[in-house]
């Protein structure tokens, strides 16, 4: 039996062990914060104070961060530092994509409102009685649906939603990189480890089943 497999010695308090583990994790976490605030943060905060509304302004800031963190890796600079910066840069990149998408997606409401008002005005002046709320809502729904669907099929909409999706995926992927690095720091298995294991499991299962089929087929041939 190896040392680590041995049961805890008498008098070893699991709560105490847990407290020690927690303390170690907390210390690691503090080191992470220190590393972060000791390098990138002052730069970013300084730039933010220079241009508080200009994050999406040509994405100068995200481009600067990208350039900085894409440089050579230094042995004594924490990798998580670089990854947090990249995630931050992806977040900045996503903001204008979201704004563009919102602008394109909300455009048809103006046309829908215009058409609806024209329809209701025409109904108000006709001999028939003024529509009640349900009839008015049905008309509003029909017109808005037409305009929204028409808009969704335009190149502008499709391009805006594609760029938003790309930016969102980039952000998510960089957040995952941060989470992976943190997991490694705490000695936890990462998402990539899990994917590797499931890949091996899936491939192994395929091989076993192919062999089982071969055996079955051979038995079937033998029985003939």
């Amino acid at each position, binding site marked *: 039996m190896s040392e680590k497999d041995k049961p805890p010695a008498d008098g070893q308090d699991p709560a105490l062990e847990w407290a020690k583990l927690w303390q170690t994790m907390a210390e690691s976490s503090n080191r992470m914060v220190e590393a972060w605030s000791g390098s990138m943060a002052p730069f970013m905060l300084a730039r933010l104070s220079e241009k508080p509304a200009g994050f999406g302004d040509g994405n100068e800031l995200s481009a600067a961060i990208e350039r900085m963190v894409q440089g050579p890796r230094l042995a004594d600079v924490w990798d998580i530092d670089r990854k947090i910066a990249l995630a931050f840069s992806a977040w900045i990149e996503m903001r204008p994509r979201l704004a563009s998408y919102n602008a394109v997606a909300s455009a048809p409401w103006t046309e829908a409102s215009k058409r609806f008002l024209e329809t209701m005005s025409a109904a108000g002046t006709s001999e028939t009685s003024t529509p009640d*709320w*349900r009839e008015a809502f049905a008309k509003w*729904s029909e017109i808005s649906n037409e305009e*929204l669907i028409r808009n*969704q099929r335009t190149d502008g909409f499709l391009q805006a939603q594609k760029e938003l999706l790309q930016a969102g*995926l980039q952000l*998510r*992927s960089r957040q995952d990189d941060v989470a992976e690095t943190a997991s490694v720091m705490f000695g936890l298995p990462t998402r990539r480890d899990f994917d590797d294991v499931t*890949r091996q499991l*899936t491939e192994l299962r395929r091989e076993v089943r192919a062999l089982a089929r071969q055996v079955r087929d051979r038995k079937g041939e033998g029985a003939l």
Partner: protein
Amino acid sequence: MSDQENQASRFARDMAANAEKIFKATKLIANTRDEDVSIGTTPKHLVMRRDKVELFHYEPVAEATARTPVLLAYGLIGRYTMADLQPDRSLVRSLLSKGLDLWLIDWGQPGRTERWLTIDDYVDDYIDAAVDRIAQETGHHKITLLGICEGGVFTTCYAALHPQKVKNLVITITPIDFHADIKDKAAHHGFLNIWTRSLDPEDIDKLVDTYGVLPGEFMSSVFSMMTPMRSLAKYNVDLIDVVDDEAKFMNFLRMEKWLADRPHHPGEAAKQWLKDLYQENRLVEGSFVLSGRQVDLKSIAAPVLNIFALDDHIIPPDCSRALGAKIGSKDYTEIPLPGGHVGLFVSSKSQGKLSQSIADWLLACDANPVSEA
């Protein structure tokens, strides 16, 4: 009182009534527990489990009419419970009441663990294992496959790759030509096709590689975009309409439960679904390959029944209709039915026609002694 005053007072009265109904709906929802809303309740028993996939056999409810067992396969986008939403709107119950021997393959709830599963695994492993097991249990060498939506693509591929095991093929609301939406002039049809083609193949890879799956919530949001006002009015105007009728209110909640139960699509299979089929249209082009073998639709030798919905906004009718010209079988029947993608199964009007069409066709096939070889 002037006309304007009349209108104002009518509007105020209606809005007060609506506010009262919304309040009532809120109370009703708060007092209804999830377990009170049951779907997929037709009795069945588990016959086989393979990973997360389960094969069930439905309990018969009528004297057997058709001899050949029928295997129902839904797609990986959504769950089979759409075919068994509630007792009076259930394709499953309806087919059982007509004396069919019905089996179900349930894909379960795929997650990141199933990231590496491909359509090859679903067709050549899971469906094949289910077919073999049904054959073993019933003594039939060939069975009938009944595919719904993506499940229709899986069963079509299976019928092409394993024609010796398929007696009849029934597909419903199934895309075959993924680019046929281009011919469809209805503005609300085929957004899914257009949206998928607007993406770069690398976007799909990145989506799957990032999440490990095609997330169910993501697909739900794409589907909501296809009926924008319906999605916006669902929890207000639609609720007002059903709140005074308990049966309608429960129908509403069952539908919501089905919509909320949208599993993740296994990652690698999603790449094939979106890139090979939606973007590159490989099934009709004859270049779709599963387990190293080309899926040749001309190899489908079994009689085929193809049912689609004329107002299907998700799978435009022409996308389904394409099968007729591509298969080898001369015994091909096409039944276009009024209704939409989901309405075909859950609306009280159309699902009666759907089950009757399937049962009549299968009974006629069983009466033909040629096909059981």
